[in-house]
C-alpha cells in the first residue's frame, strides 16, 4: 500500500491546470477523487496525526508543532501511528506531525529541519526527498508513506504569484510521476494521494491558522479546509482525515 502526501495541495490549482499536470491528470483518469472538507482544525500537525493514527483531533489531542512554548516531540502525542500497530514491513518518510517530521524504519534528514521558507532550500529538499523515496520504493515495502511539505511553505509566502505557485505544482506533479513508476494501476494494491488541507487567500478558509504578518514577512495565503483526496483500491470510504488511518488498518488486518 502506498500513501503519497502533498501538504496544502488544492483542487483550485490542480483542476484548472490538468493539461499542465500530466500525473495529476492520470490519477484523476485512473482513480477515484474527491474533496475532503476537514471538520476539525485545518492545521498540519493535528491533521497528519489524524491521517496516520485513524483518530480525530479530539481523540489524539495533538494540537500543533509548538504547545505552551514547547516544541512537541513524537512522545508528546498520546496515540499510536498505524505503522506502530501494523505487523508489516513499513517504511515511512517525513510525516509532519512534529518537527522534524517523523521517519520510521528509514532515515532522512530534511533541509532546514522541514520548516524552511527559502525557495532554494525547499527545492533541494524536494529533490532529496524524491530520491530518498525512490530508494525506499526500490525495496518494495508492504506499506510506504511519504509527505512532501514544500508546497505549503511556498503557498504561504507566494500565493499571489500564481506563476510561481503553478511552477511548484508542476514540480510536485513531477514527484508524483516518478513515484507512480513504482505503482501498477492494474494491480489491486491500494493507493492514496492526498493533502491534509487545501489553500486559499487569507479570509477564504473557515479558520485562520497563521497570522498575516510574521517576523519572516507577510503571508499571502492560508490553509483552507477543502483537501485533495485521490484513491485506488481503497475502502472503506474516506470522508475525514482519520478515515485514512482506518482504511490503512483495515487493509492490513
Amino acid at each position: 500500500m502506498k500513501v503519497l502526501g502533498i501538504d496544502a495541495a488544492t483542487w483550485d490549482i490542480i483542476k484548472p491546470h490538468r493539461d499542465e499536470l500530466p500525473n495529476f491528470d492520470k490519477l484523476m483518469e485512473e482513480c477515484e477523487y474527491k474533496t475532503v472538507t476537514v471538520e476539525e482544525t485545518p492545521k498540519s500537525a493535528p491533521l497528519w496525526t489524524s491521517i496516520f493514527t485513524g483518530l480525530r483531533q479530539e481523540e489524539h489531542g495533538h494540537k500543533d508543532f509548538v504547545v505552551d512554548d514547547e516544541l512537541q516531540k513524537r512522545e508528546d502525542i498520546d496515540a499510536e501511528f498505524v505503522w506502530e500497530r501494523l505487523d508489516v514491513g513499513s517504511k515511512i518518510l517525513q510525516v509532519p506531525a512534529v518537527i522534524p517530521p517523523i521517519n520510521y524504519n528509514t532515515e532522512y534528514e530534511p533541509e532546514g529541519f522541514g520548516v524552511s521558507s527559502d525557495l532554494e532550500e525547499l527545492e533541494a529538499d524536494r529533490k532529496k526527498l524524491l530520491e530518498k523515496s525512490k530508494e525506499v520504493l526500490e525495496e518494495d515495502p508492504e506499506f510506504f508513506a511519504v509527505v512532501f511539505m514544500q508546497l505549503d511553505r511556498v503557498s504561504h509566502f507566494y500565493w499571489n504569484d500564481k506563476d510561481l505557485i503553478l511552477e511548484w505544482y508542476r514540480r510536485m506533479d513531477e514527484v508524483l510521476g516518478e513515484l507512480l513508476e513504482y505503482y501498477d494501476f492494474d494491480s489491486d494494491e491500494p493507493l492514496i494521494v492526498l493533502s491534509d488541507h487545501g489553500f486559499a487567500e487569507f479570509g477564504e478558509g473557515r479558520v485562520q491558522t497563521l497570522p498575516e504578518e510574521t517576523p519572516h514577512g507577510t503571508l499571502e495565503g492560508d490553509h483552507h479546509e477543502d483537501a485533495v483526496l485521490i484513491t485506488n483500491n481503497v475502502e472503506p470510504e474516506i470522508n475525514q482525515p482519520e478515515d485514512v488511518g482506518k482504511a490503512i488498518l483495515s487493509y492490513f488486518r
Partner: protein
Amino acid sequence: MQRKTISLPDDLAEFVDENHINLSRFVQDKLRELAESDSDQDEITEEQAKEIFQKLESLGYLDG
C-alpha cells in the same frame, strides 16, 4: 511485570533448549536495544530544538 507469550519454530525451540538460553532475558535485552536505538534516531540536540523553535516563531506558528 507483564507476561507475553511468543511462538518459536521447532528448530529454534530446540536451539534454545540445547543452549540453555534464558529466553525471557534474551528477548528483554533485544527489545531494550531496539527501543534505545529508536529513541536515538529521533533525538535532536537542545541547540537544534532551539533553531527549529526560532524558525517556527519566525513563520508565525507561535502566534496562534
